[in-house]
């Protein structure tokens, strides 16, 4: 049989070369190529500094946090269009709750997380038990969250609270050990709370997907729902749970966004759901379900940041080139995905 190979003594190389990671590698490779391009062209004006690199994380951290949940939803073969509105609603709830009603932001944050998870659960249930397409269900959720947000307030509400300031101001300054003492890296580079949450969420997401029974079920449901049912897996529970988790991530992303803008606005993050989805897709997650990795999603988010950064460094190009570049990037990725799928199909045919 042609597939006979080095199976028993799993070398590191064979593990790394596993074809299931190919899309993640493609994402990382394209990120590195673009980064290298930037380094060559704008290296002299600070593109290669650690600060610029950390800013790739900082710029889109809230999208990244949301993308963690989205990746899981996409792996099950679903989609969630409500994430940006739920995030916007979270910001609004916290800002309104404190500024107008005088409720502690902590309580409002917990409350909005409950709302996010609740809405996610509801949508997941509608998708599984009522058999309404995820697209339509979550679009309705999107309208609902955005609408409630607008009912609360039509204007942007600024929040000033020591806790918010403290959280937003939290930063770790990166140091290096040089000539016998710790000195700040130049230019001074900080890691803020959002970046920390983002990275921690990516790690937690990876653990859930790769090292729990639930994670395995998520992949199985996305691979072939019918088979998953026949194998006796809890398909319904898995789907509902995934949307609930995504609701949690959306709320968390809303809090992260609040820390950036320090205000709640009903029209905040409009269209953000597609930014989040494209992060996951550029990161190698298949919209057909069954395939996706958190680490890929993370690089998807970085890719989203590196393009505007290049345009900024260029100084001449207009920001709208970013949109076209994102579109082109998406095209590139789905063409690669398509090619990979066709290639593996051919391999199998042999």
């Amino acid at each position, binding site marked *: 049989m042609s597939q006979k190979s080095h199976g028993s003594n799993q070398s590191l190389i064979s593990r790394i070369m596993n074809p299931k990671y190919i899309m993640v590698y493609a994402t990382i490779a394209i990120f590195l190529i673009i980064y290298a391009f930037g380094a060559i062209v704008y290296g002299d004006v600070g593109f290669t500094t650690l600060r610029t690199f950390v800013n790739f994380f900082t710029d889109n951290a809230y999208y990244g946090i949301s993308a963690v949940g989205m990746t899981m939803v996409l792996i099950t073969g679903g989609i969630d269009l409500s994430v940006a509105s739920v995030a916007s609603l979270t910001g609004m709830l916290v800002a309104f709750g404190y500024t107008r009603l005088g409720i502690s932001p902590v309580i409002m944050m917990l409350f909005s997380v409950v709302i996010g998870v609740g809405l996610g659960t509801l949508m997941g249930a509608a998708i599984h038990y*009522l*058999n309404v*397409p995820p697209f339509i269900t979550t679009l309705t959720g999107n309208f*609902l969250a*955005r609408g409630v947000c607008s009912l609360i307030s039509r204007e942007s509400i600024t929040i000033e609270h020591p806790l918010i300031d403290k959280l937003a101001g939290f930063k770790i300054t990166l140091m290096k050990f040089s000539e016998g003492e710790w000195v700040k890296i130049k230019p001074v580079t900080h890691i803020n709370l959002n970046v920390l949450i983002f990275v921690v969420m990516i790690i937690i997401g990876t653990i859930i997907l790769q090292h729990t029974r639930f994670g395995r079920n998520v992949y199985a449901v996305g691979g072939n729902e019918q088979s998953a049912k026949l194998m006796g897996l809890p398909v319904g529970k898995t789907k509902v749970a995934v949307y609930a988790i995504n609701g949690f991530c959306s709320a968390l992303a809303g809090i992260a966004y609040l820390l950036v803008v320090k205000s709640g606005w009903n029209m905040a993050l409009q269209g953000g759901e597609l930014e989040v989805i494209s992060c996951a897709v550029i990161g190698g997650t298949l919209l*057909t379900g069954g395939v996706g990795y958190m680490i890929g999603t993370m690089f998807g988010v970085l890719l989203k940041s590196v393009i505007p950064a290049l345009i900024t460094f260029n100084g001449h190009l207009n920001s709208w080139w970013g949109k076209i570049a994102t579109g082109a990037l998406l095209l590139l990725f789905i063409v690669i995905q398509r090619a990979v799928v066709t290639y593996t199909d051919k391999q199998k045919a042999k």
Partner: protein
Amino acid sequence: MKKKSSLPSILCFVLAVVCLLVGVGVIRFGGAGARAFLDRQAVAFIVDAILLVVAGVVFMLMAQGKFTIPAGIAKSKITWAVVAELLILLVCLNIRIDFFSISFQPSTGMLYGSLIDIVNRSAEITIIGMGMTLVIALGGTDLSVGALVAVSGAFALKLLRWDPSSVEYGTPGDYTVYPLIVVIVVPLLVCLLMGAFNGVMIGQLGLQPIIATLILMVSGRGVAQILTNGKQFTTLYSPFRWIGQGSLFFLPTPIIITIVVVALVMLFVRKTAFGTFVESVGINRSAARLSGINAKMVILIVFAITGFLSGISGMIYSSRIMSNDSNNAGLNYETDAILAVVIGGTSMSGGKFSLTGTIIGSLIIRTIVTFVYYFGVAAEATMAFKALIIAVVIVLQSEPVRNAMAKRAQARAQATMSTVKGGAAA
């Protein structure tokens, strides 16, 4: 046979009498404000009374087994859309009767009123909805329509204002650089080509519609901005204004354009075999291919049509604001159009479609918006209303619910049949 009446029918008749008495002014209560409201709404109460009588008679006949709602209507998904639209309008009627008033303005030669406004403002979504219906019938979605609306507007404004000889934009005024026909046709052709691009990626390359059209959705607005250097231009060219703000046969031009587009699409789809081909490919692509249908071509045509129709919508939109707006033109049109199609009873999984349903869906969406504006509710809260109504319609249309209702209806019909028989025997 003993005459049988049912509780709902009795309730209807009692309510009808009450409404009638209120309507003709026999019953009056409350303070001056309430009285003024009741006087103003008199006609509405009479309408309610008539509707209640009709409902009561229907309930009575149903209880006697003389009348059953035809299976075709009961099963049809459009029924729910129509019922929803009528109920919303009924609510409007009962809150403020002048919601239904239509007036004629001789200076513009146009009819005015909320109802006219609903139809007028639904034009963009209805027009795109025609294409989206076909896309969804194929089992796909098109997310790029909103971006194409922006592209169409940007292109039109560029042709109106951009002088190629001086490579500059002139000052706003009642002029055009290129003839109107070019201003209209070129953007539409560009949108047609962009739609065809979607079609090629989906039909020939076999990409998933959602992701394939996401590309143009994301980059389309970038293209629109590049066309106009990211600036917003205005024009005062009056023939262009006519497209979105003028009138024809006493009606706003967009309504006329919508009627023409709907008629053409319906003719194309139902008077040729194209509609059947679309349905065949949407239901069973393999069987359609083996029957000799060129599925890839069908997909290409459908997406190209959708692109073209998005272009028309963009033209109307930019004529309404007499400007291009690459960021906001056509914003969320894709979701509104998809919702209009789904509310109209076409299933997201493809197959049988209903263009009429989509028109009703589009009207429902617009009625909600107009309702909210008219009654001074926060405009942004429209979303919440939309969500609630859509949620209700979609839950009612969902498979498990419809199956359960069909079962109940069947059981009830059998029950009445047996009682009727029993009664006859006695």
